[in-house]
């Protein structure tokens, strides 16, 4: 099996991360410089569940590198609908493309798929598991906004099912970062992630109340509490309101606190935060293009 698949942030070292971020910064400074770099190359898009930002930023990144995409299209118009296995689908599409990007609703799907293909495969989200390329753009945004030294990061919301949270938490163990996890009891980090952080010697604490840590944070990473995860709606209503922030909530925060969100948001960050200097989530989304260009450039170079 080739070793340049991007499956989990667990496998990204600080050197791996900084190499992609440095390249992304060069690309962001001169986006047109790579216009013909991967002329004729094709990226296979396998999105088994909906995506807006991730999919569009990969398409944009590939086209800005001079390449193009081949897209499986919606699942209900593909052979998946006829009962084709994931293993068969990826084995077919690898014959059409130089690299694959895959999103799938099941955990471990990207790892399994990578075992069946000979072209690099990038995990663009596997169920509640991992989303490593989101993490790279999150880290790019953090480095740009707050730096990586002596960092205190709060991660709030659905920590149990949030794949962006799992990947970010793993990746932050490479840096001098204290991690504070804020969530309802029922949506705490899964045992596997806590195990990894413990093994990595990460500095981490868990909280149910943002107020306990807000004043110390350099970065607050907010995710949506998903109503569909709760056994009944009353349970959801009881907790959801406690994990929403607005400009007033942030009155006690550091002036240079950076508020991030993988998007889409619903009501966990009020619109009045958008107007503050804390808001960084739209810039975060824009950073997806140079970061994914850097990653694709690295992978496509390696696969030549």
């Amino acid at each position, binding site marked *: 099996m080739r070793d340049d698949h991007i499956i989990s942030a667990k496998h990204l070292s600080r050197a791996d991360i900084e190499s992609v971020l440095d390249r992304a910064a060069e690309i962001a400074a001169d986006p047109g410089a790579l216009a013909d770099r991967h002329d004729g190359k094709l990226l296979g898009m396998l999105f088994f569940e909906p995506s807006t930002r991730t999919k569009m930023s990969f398409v944009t990144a590939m086209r800005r590198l001079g390449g193009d995409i081949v897209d499986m299209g919606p699942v209900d118009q593909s052979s998946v609908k006829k009962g084709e296995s994931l293993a068969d689908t990826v084995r077919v599409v690898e014959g059409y493309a130089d690299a694959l990007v895959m999103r799938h609703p099941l955990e471990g799907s990207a790892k399994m798929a990578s075992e069946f293909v000979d072209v690099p495969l990038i995990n663009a989200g596997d169920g509640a598991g991992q989303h490593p390329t989101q993490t790279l753009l999150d880290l790019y945004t953090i480095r740009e906004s707050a730096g990586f030294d002596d960092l205190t990061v709060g991660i709030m919301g659905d920590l149990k099912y949030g794949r962006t949270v799992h990947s970010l938490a793993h990746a932050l163990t490479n840096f001098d970062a204290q991690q504070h996890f804020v969530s309802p009891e029922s949506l705490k980090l899964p*045992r596997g992630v806590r195990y990894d952080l413990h093994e990595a010697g990460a500095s981490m604490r868990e909280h149910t109340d943002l107020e306990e840590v807000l004043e110390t944070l350099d970065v607050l990473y907010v995710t949506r509490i998903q109503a569909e995860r709760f056994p009944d709606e009353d349970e959801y209503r009881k907790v959801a309101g406690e994990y929403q922030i607005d400009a007033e909530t942030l009155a006690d925060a550091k002036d240079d606190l950076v508020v991030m969100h993988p998007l889409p948001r619903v009501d966990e960050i009020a619109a009045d935060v958008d107007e503050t200097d804390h808001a960084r989530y739209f810039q975060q989304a824009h950073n997806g293009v140079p970061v994914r260009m850097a990653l694709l450039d690295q992978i496509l170079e390696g696969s030549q």
Partner: protein
Amino acid sequence: MTDDQQLRVSKITEGTVIDHVTGGQALNVLAILGIDGSGGEEVSIGMNVPSDRLGRKDVVKVEGRELSQDEVDVLSLIAPAATINIVRDYDVVEKHRVERPGEVVGVLRCPNRNCITTKDEPVDSRFAVLEEGVRCAYCDTIIRESIAEHIHVD
């Protein structure tokens, strides 16, 4: 009565004696071996018998069958103190303790219903063996308690 004396009183002709199994786990040992009686195997079980080493232990004796390494690997998860005695012509010709493997493949079902290994895909389950428990190599789910409940025998 010592463990050795117990072994002497009920020897088998050819096969395996799995001794020092954690008390109450004998039926799970049979499940790992895929033995449910329908194949006509000759099996003796002692459950919760006194043991010098463990206080209480189970003993499983299977006539005409030697265990594969995969089977021994999984056994080690539910009976870490077990000893495997290979018997030929009434004599114990090999005796060794089980050792915890680095991973077990194809014998445990991941409890995460959203794990790709639980679907109809051409992939075996694969679990890394941790100091305490096991961990799915695909979805990272950790099982610490009641590992035997996740044994999956076709």
